[in-house]
Structures are given as structure tokens and as C-alpha cells.
């Protein structure tokens, strides 16, 4: 056997195990819910959860990269809605081919992200304000484009992306894992990924190392817009409707997933494996509260308390 590759594997496994320390909160949550509800730990419900998590997870991957550079993006929910609406409009109103429509939708999201990136990197405006502005601008565009009404009724081809299956696995789940893998590799194995960490760690030093930090930041925000568009198209397909108010408040869920997953809001450390665990904590929690039929006011308290507990357990286990 090749010694080096076995060594590499061992390292990778150790690294992954270490990552799962971030998952101790999730694990405890899963164990408790398994005892509380007989429906929780069943294959259909688990598939259900991963399908539900896919929308937020895909956004969170982009958000992870943005936060790693030390930035933030509040506009993901609006970019999601805009891309979904554009795609739906191209199919329903303009009668375009589904794939062409999807391409246009993705381009729309990427363009908005690109704008964010340029404003942050070139005009040196604070990311919080730029993306807050984009949040209302893109929402306005969406409402104007849809006139405040949903666009609904797609054919089977388009519905495949959100509601279809590959074997027993829902298509959104497949897309999510594919993106997880690609972004993991991007962050860990490519120069671009290293630069993303480097910028968040010490932007000045990165620049002094001769790296064009502006270009990288722009790329990261654009990629984030692209991923929001992917999410928006899946959501539209899954709901069989593009909702003008889709994705409202998702930015907080996405950022929460990233931070729960151990990525520091000041940038430079963390990663996308933690993020998916963070997103799963939120999704499992929502699922569990529904299964246990916790009443609506108490649900809010329970949700907050469990999130606190999860992050507390994680941080404690990491200190050891």
C-alpha cells in the first residue's frame, strides 16, 4: 500500500473527527430527540431533515466564505428571491427554455453578488451597509418584477431540481453535498481558498504578500450571490412558486449556521464542514419542535435555549 496516501488518509480522518467535536451539540440534540419522539430517528424523517436543510445550507456555504474574509452578507435572502423570481418569470412569463431560464437566474444572483463585492473591495464601504442596502434593493427589484405576486405553475423538468429524486435521495440534497464537497476542496486545497483565510486573518499581511485581495473579495461575494441563486431556484422549484418575499430573514439563519459551526465572525478561521453542522442543528431543532408539537410561544423560548446550549456544549468540548 502507498504509504503516503495512507498517511494522508489518516490525517484527513483525524481532521474530520476533530471537526465532529463541533458536532457535539448536534449529537446531544439528536440523542435527546430520539428519546422524545419515536418518529424522529426514522429514515424518512432524516431524509426530510436533510432536504429541508439544503436551502439554508447552500446559502451558508457562501456565507462561510464571506465571513472567512472578515465580511458579512445580509442580502442573501433577497438575492435568493430575486434569482428565483427571474427564473420563474423567464419560464412562465417569457416562455423560455428551463435551462436557459436557470442560467439567467444564476447570472442575476451572481451579478448582484458582484455588485456587493465591488462596493466592498473597491469602494471600501463597510460590508454590513453595502449588503443591507442590497437587501432592500434586491427585495424592491423582486417586488417590482413580480408586482408583489407569486409566479407559479412549472412543468416537470423544472420541478426536478427542488422536488425530484435521484434514487431515494432528494435532488436538493445531492446538489447540497456536491456543493459542500466542491467548496470544501476549494477552501482547503486551492490557493484561492488559502487566500480567503489569509484575508480574514490579516488583510494587510496578505496584501503585502503580493496578493490581489480586492479581486478575491469580489470573487467571494459574487460566488455568494451565485449560491443564493442556486438556493432560490431550488426553493422556487420545490414550492412550485416563486414568492416575492421568499428568503426573508434567511441571512440570520445562515449567519447563525456559520457561527454555530465554529467560524469566527471576525474572519480567518473556521470552515464549511462546521457550517453544515450548524445548519443541521437549526433544522433538527425546527423539525423536533414540530414533531413534539410544542406550542408556538414556547417554541420560541425552546429554540433560543437549545441554540445557546448547543453552542455552549461545543465551545466547552473544544476547550478540552
Amino acid at each position, binding site marked *: 500500500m502507498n504509504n503516503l496516501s495512507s498517511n494522508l488518509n489518516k490525517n484527513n480522518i483525524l481532521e474530520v473527527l476533530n471537526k465532529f467535536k463541533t458536532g457535539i451539540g448536534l449529537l446531544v440534540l439528536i440523542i435527546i430527540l430520539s428519546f422524545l419522539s419515536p418518529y424522529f430517528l426514522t429514515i424518512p424523517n432524516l431524509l426530510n431533515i436533510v432536504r429541508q436543510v439544503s436551502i439554508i445550507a447552500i446559502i451558508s456555504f457562501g456565507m462561510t466564505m464571506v465571513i472567512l474574509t472578515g465580511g458579512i452578507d445580509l442580502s442573501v435572502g433577497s438575492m435568493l428571491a430575486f434569482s428565483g423570481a427571474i427564473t420563474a418569470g423567464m419560464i412562465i412569463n417569457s416562455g423560455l427554455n428551463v435551462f436557459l431560464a436557470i442560467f439567467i437566474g444564476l447570472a442575476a444572483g451572481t451579478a448582484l453578488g458582484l455588485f456587493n463585492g465591488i462596493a466592498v473591495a473597491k469602494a471600501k464601504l463597510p460590508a454590513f451597509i453595502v449588503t443591507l442596502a442590497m437587501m432592500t434593493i434586491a427585495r424592491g427589484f423582486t417586488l417590482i418584477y413580480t408586482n408583489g405576486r407569486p409566479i407559479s405553475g412549472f412543468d416537470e423538468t423544472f420541478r426536478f431540481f427542488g422536488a425530484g429524486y435521484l434514487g431515494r435521495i432528494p435532488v436538493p440534497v445531492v446538489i447540497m453535498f456536491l456543493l459542500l464537497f466542491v467548496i470544501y476542496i476549494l477552501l482547503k486545497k486551492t490557493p484561492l481558498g488559502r487566500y480567503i483565510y*489569509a484575508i480574514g486573518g490579516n488583510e494587510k499581511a496578505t496584501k503585502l504578500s503580493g496578493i490581489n485581495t480586492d479581486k478575491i473579495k469580489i470573487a467571494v461575494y459574487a460566488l455568494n450571490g451565485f449560491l443564493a441563486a442556486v438556493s432560490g431556484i431550488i426553493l422556487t422549484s420545490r414550492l412550485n412558486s416563486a414568492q416575492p418575499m421568499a428568503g426573508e430573514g434567511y441571512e440570520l439563519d445562515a449567519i447563525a449556521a456559520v457561527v454555530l459551526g465554529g467560524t469566527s465572525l471576525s474572519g480567518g478561521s473556521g470552515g464549511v464542514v462546521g457550517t453544515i453542522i450548524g445548519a443541521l442543528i437549526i433544522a433538527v431543532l425546527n423539525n423536533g419542535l414540530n414533531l413534539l408539537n410544542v406550542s408556538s410561544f414556547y417554541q420560541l423560548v425552546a429554540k433560543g435555549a437549545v441554540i445557546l446550549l448547543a453552542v455552549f456544549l461545543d465551545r466547552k468540548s473544544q476547550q478540552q
Partner: protein
Amino acid sequence: MGNEKVLEMKNITKTFPGVKALDRVNFTLKKGEVHALLGENGAGKSTLMKVLNGIHKRDEGEIIVKGDPVEFENTKEAQNAGLAIIHQELELIPHLNVAENIYLGREDKKGIFINYKQLYQNTADVLEMLGVDIDPRAKIKDLNIGSQQMVEIAKAVSQNADILVMDEPTSSLTNQEIDILFELIERLKEQEISIVYISHRLEEVFEICDRVTVLRDGQFVGEVKTAETDEDQLINMMVGRTIEDRFPEMKFNPGEEILRVENLAVPDKIIDASFLLHKGEVLGIAGLMGSGRTELAKAVFGVYKEKTGDIYFKGKKLEINSPADALKNGISYLSEDRKDEGLVLGLPVADNISISVLTTMLKAHTFINAAAEKELAQKYIEDLSIKTPSEMQLVKNLSGGNQQKVVISKLLSTKPEVVILDEPTRGIDVGAKREIYNLMQELVDNGVGVILISSELPEVLNLSNRILVMHEQEIMGELDAADANQEEIMQLATGRRNQ
């Protein structure tokens, strides 16, 4: 060393708001020479080199590299033209590892991926050439400042530049590491690589440099051959006057015991340390990098929660669980890492100096006594000749050495009875060094107990009356400074106990 000029800087002028950092400065570098750039803190050395490397834009002047006039927009262009720089203030990425830092922006690639195998191999090679034992996979944040300095050096050296700027590369290094660095410099010289060498340690200049350029207050003072000058002349050029001896004749008057440490231990950091400090004396602590001197000091200062053992202050047992506790009892500590642990870079000089005494000396009812604060700041700016346009200048805009003086001011402002100085003269010019030594004498005269941690053995030997030597988290022994010598210290520092 040839006579070919690889670099010419002519009439370089650079102004910052309120400061003329460079005023028509000339500098030339010949192929294969080591050229020292000397000057007091804030003279403009770093600024000149930053202008050269495209980090700062010059206001006026001309730069000619290998015969061609250049106009670097950024460091990348400077790199491409064969320039590399070791930054005075370390510029590394804390969460990336050593290899990733050294080759940041210059990664070996396999397809679109980083070729990590090659990367670690190359890093290991560079580190081996430097003769240091650092794991290429270690994260920067887990390294001490000395190792970080070696990484910064490795980063510049690995660029195979033909003009290499070293801005105070040895300020965080121990003697062994300095020796290794000097061997490296010799080898680079043989390869016809030209080096600009900035340091405040004159003996280093005489050991490795061929020529010297001196700056004062942003102006060119002169250029001399090392062989044709001596320390006194250089100092005179730098400070405009002569300074008698490098070290003052320290007078101690050890009084009663002021600090007694018994069986102090911190898991993974300090093993069972006991020692004693009297009023009016200087207790030196020597040891190799990573021997635990800083940890010992921090343990006394209350930084670590998990610790065992007792600390007595004037015979009374103290519970020190935080730096606040320590300071309240008159024990103060000067960190070796001013950027990370000493300064709030974004605040003005005055705010940094006064921060520890706001609620004690500077309080007027519930408010800060602004007039007293200003006075305090101005007193130290004058006493330690801190070079700053005003006490309201942000600390991040000061030169490295002047930043160090601000941290010392903060410490002195608390009127401490026990002072722990961890590498107090790091990055400080000859004149100011001498002022700090005088200051130590003053402290001692006033009955303060001083602990001095320094990697410069002559400093420890000349300024202390007793010396503790540490090795691997343990105190190996105590020497009387009067009859100790470097060899004795090194023996203990490398783990051989004396009888």
C-alpha cells in the same frame, strides 16, 4: 562585493499627516554587499524601505533598480523585480500554518490545487537552511514571537530575491538564532545577493555589514565604510552627540525582601519555580527561546488561572488571580509582544499611557482628569523622548521603537514596586536603550524590585546583580552577576545543572 550599484534611491521624500518621515534621502546599495541602515527610533528607516518595496508611495524622488527607474504600485511588482523584505512588525496570518505563510501567494500548484507535498518539502528545506526547528505544519498563532520572526525571515529568503531588506530581524531572536542568521547572510553574500540590514545592535553591524548609511529625523546624515569607523562615530552620527558607555555601572542597594515566589507551577508551562526578589535590585532571568521565562513572568502577573504555589509580597501572602490583582499590589509586567499584548494600536499615545491609572491617579470625581492625563502623557513623551507629533497621535502611526516606549510609559505610570521587564529594549535605539538602563537604575534607587528578562546576554550580565537561568520550564540555577559569564549561563540554559 562588486562595485556595481543594484539600487539607487535619490532625494526620497515622504510625508505623513503631521510628520515629515523622509526628507530628500539618498541611499545606494552595491551588488553583494550588506549595507546597514542606522538611525534613532523614528528616523525613517522602515519608511524608506517601505517606499522601496511599493508599500508606501513616495512624494518625491527617484528609485533606480539595476539601472532601471522603477515605480512599484504594490509589493507584487517589487517582488517581481527581485526585492524582498522582512518586516519589522511581523506580518503573518495567525490561523495559517508555517508553510502556507512562507509561500503565501507563491504556492506550488498541481493543476488547480496546491501541491502540499511540495509545499511542505520546500518549507522544510528553507527552514533547514536557516537551521531552525519549526514544524512546517504548525499554525503561526501557536508559535512564540521568536519562531514567528524566523518564519518571517524564511518567507523573505525563500523568494530568492537579489535585494533583500531585513528590518530588525534579530530583535526577537536569541544568540544561537542570530549566529545562524549571520551564517546565512554570509552565504547570501557569496551568491552576490545585496542586503539592507536595519538594527539597533551596533555590534551586529560591525560583525556583518560592509557599509553604513545613517539617517536622522528623516534626513540623510552620511555613509561610511564599516572598516573605517567605530561605534562612537556611528552613535554620534545617529544621535548628534556621544554616549559614554553602552551599559551604565549599575549600583544596587538590595533592601528587604519584596517578592517571594514559592513552588509556583502552571500546568504545561512552569515546573515548580521558587525565587526571591529584594527591593533595589535587578534580578535577571536568562534562558533559550521557549524556556518559559515569559510564562514565569506571566504566572506571577496573574495571567494564568490554573496555578499552584504561593506568592508573597513584602512577606504577606497574595492572591493574584488576574493582572488587575497584580497591578493593585504594585506588581507590573512589560510584555515581550507589544503589538499583541501591549498596545491598543487604534487609540492615541495618551490613552495608551494612562489606561492603567485612569481610576486611580487620573480620576476627578467620575471623570477622567483630562488635564492630568495630558500632563502624564507629555511627561513620558519627554522623559523617554518618544517621537510623536502630539500625545493624540494614534499609536499605530508611531515607529516600532517609539511604540515600545509607549508601553514602558504605561508600566511606569502605575508607580510599581515590582517591575517585570520582558525584553524591554526590543527594537530600541542606542540612545533610548541607554535611557532605559538609566531608568532601571532610577527604579532601583527608589527601592523598586526589578526582574529583567532578556535574550541579550550582555544586557542580563551587565544590568543584574543576580541571574536566574531557565531551561525547559524550570529554573536551573542562580548565578551572581558579578562573577558570572556567558559560558556559565549557556551551560545552565542548555540543561546542565551547576554543582
